């Protein structure tokens, strides 16, 4: 900007003319060499391996892909050696390896989901009956426009609900004990909880079978199955709730105690409300985990084909058990129903995880 001041022209710096709007500069640091190197290495490796397969007469897709990746790494390293210092070569190889791992995981997940949805779609898209009818009186060979999985959906909902009622107080109570009470005994409890999270699910089923069914002579009912699910769910809830409670700043507890609060009301009115979002997330993660639990149910629940809404009498079916029996049946239509139910279960778990992420999102406006 020029300012005329008593005939003398002064140049004022700091305020550039605003005629052209300032454009943010591209801050990417990847050069042409960076991009060209891995692409050419990839293409070159593909060519080399293809020729090798033509010459030797080898076959097999898995071996081809693996060999391609190995040759790609070698080529990439060779190309990078030219004109790059050693750390850059190392860096690129590490990045390529990690990216390869990510692609494998992504493909595995994607193929599982797409395979399930593709196989299950014929049953999943039977909006008229699949979600409103049960399997009572429906033969395994029956066409897909007859019968449905309402009984399994209802069974899963009831069992998960009961398991939640059991493990909510138990899991949160354990978490509060581990973080707020503490001491030597709390360390023992933490070790036990950690061991329980690693416990094979089938053992939870065996435990409930050995106690409730063999010792207390209960029948195989929805309630017994829910107890087995709660055994699996409680340590998961306790562990993730403990993490949520642990991030509550110690200063808040001190502030509460300094106001004359007892430890009980400090936990109830300050610590738990502060950790509310994290605790909700821990519960939802627990629910998502047990919704697909099959092994304990195989042992204790027993399966029905009809609608049973009473958890204390007669067997109750559930989505995982229904999927298990359907997919093993050998009847194409029944298998399709199984995959349809699996798609429902996948959708349910996805929704639950999305809900958990939403609840655990960082809060705006807090410091």
């Amino acid at each position: 900007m020029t300012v005329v001041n008593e005939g003398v022209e002064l140049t004022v710096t700091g305020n550039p003319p605003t005629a052209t709007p300032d454009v943010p500069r591209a801050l990417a640091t990847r050069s042409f060499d960076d991009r060209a190197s891995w692409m050419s290495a990839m293409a070159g490796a593909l060519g080399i391996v293809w020729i090798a397969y033509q010459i030797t007469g080898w076959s097999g897709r898995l071996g081809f892909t693996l060999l391609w990746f190995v040759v790609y790494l070698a080529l990439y390293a060779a190309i990078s050696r030219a004109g790059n210092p050693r750390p850059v070569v190392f860096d690129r190889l590490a990045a390529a390896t990690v990216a390869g791992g990510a692609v494998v995981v992504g493909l595995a997940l994607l193929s599982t989901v797409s395979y399930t949805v593709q196989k299950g779609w014929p049953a999943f898209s039977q909006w008229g009956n699949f979600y409103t009818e049960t399997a009572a009186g429906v033969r395994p060979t029956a066409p897909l426009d007859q019968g449905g999985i309402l009984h399994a959906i209802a069974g899963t909902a009831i069992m998960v609900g009961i398991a939640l009622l059991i493990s909510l107080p138990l899991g949160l109570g354990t978490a509060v004990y581990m973080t707020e009470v503490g001491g030597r005994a709390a360390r023992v409890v933490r070790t036990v909880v950690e061991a329980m999270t690693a416990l094979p699910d089938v053992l939870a089923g065996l435990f409930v079978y050995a106690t409730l069914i063999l010792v207390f002579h209960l029948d195989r009912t929805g309630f017994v199955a829910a107890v087995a699910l709660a055994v699996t769910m409680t340590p998961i809830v306790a562990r993730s709730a403990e993490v949520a409670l642990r991030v509550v700043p110690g200063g808040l507890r001190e502030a509460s105690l300094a106001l004359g609060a007892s430890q009980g009301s400090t936990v109830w009115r300050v610590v738990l409300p502060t950790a509310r979002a994290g605790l909700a997330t821990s519960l939802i993660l627990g629910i998502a985990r047990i919704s697909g639990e099959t092994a304990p149910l195989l042992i204790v629940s027993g399966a029905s084909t009809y609608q049973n809404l009473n958890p204390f009498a007669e067997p109750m079916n559930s989505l995982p058990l229904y999927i298990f029996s359907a997919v093993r049946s050998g009847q194409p239509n029944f298998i399709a129903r199984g995959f349809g139910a699996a798609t429902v279960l996948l959708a349910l778990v996805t929704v639950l995880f999305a809900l958990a992420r939403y609840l655990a999102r960082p809060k705006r406006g807090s410091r």
Partner: protein
Amino acid sequence: MSTIDFLEDSLAHSAPESSAVGVDAVAVSAWFGSNKVLERVNLSMPPRTVTALIGPSGCGKSTFLRILNRMHESVPAAKMAGEVRLNGQDIYAPSVRITHMRKRIGMVFQKPNPFPAMSIAENVTAGLKLTGTKVSRSERSDIIEGCLRRGGLWNEVKDRLDEPGQALSGGQQQRLCIARSLAVNPDVLLMDEPCSALDPTSTRRIEETIAELAPDVTIVIVTHNMQQAARVSQQCAFFLAEQGSPGGIVEAGTTKQLFEDPHDSRTADYVNGRFG
């Protein structure tokens, strides 16, 4: 009057003028595990007086402050000896209920810590809720306004009492914490470096608040800022921990005497900024 009766009195929201209570520390020692950090500290903090505790880091002044409302013992392996007398009654006596005692001796911490799950108004009355003190709706709004006024925050937040307490600035949060500790009507207010995380403007507002509270409440403040000690306090105690030995009071007296005519050369060096 038994100790309990005497402490129950503070439950009533009596006029602040009536509660003028001093604190006396008698031969207070403190340990963390086997490490002794305070050696036989004697200090009398008279009613309606602001007492400043000054001294370099690690000399035990925060530990001493936390002993005054029994927050010290919430640290694992922390031990203490000696007596702390609130109006002549030992607060460490077995008959004293710790929650009642802490209601009478409030504390403001270094880092502002309003409860995140509560609004501004709920933060002010948190102490009543946490201690199970029942108040009527009209009393409640009187307490909110009164405490926020005494904390010097009312004019800034009166139109947004339902907003979360953490939406305030750092200085406002600290004044909210002061208002929160006033709501249970304490006789003594302990402040542990309340301004060290704040900018100069907020610091001045807090110092004004301290001056306004001083006629009603006995205030003990730990500060690293010598000018602040000189501005806000009438009485001053200089703590020091020599290398490898527990901390203790080198010199205590009126602020004027300590800053203008210290008896001990170490005090003179410290208040004149020659060390620490």
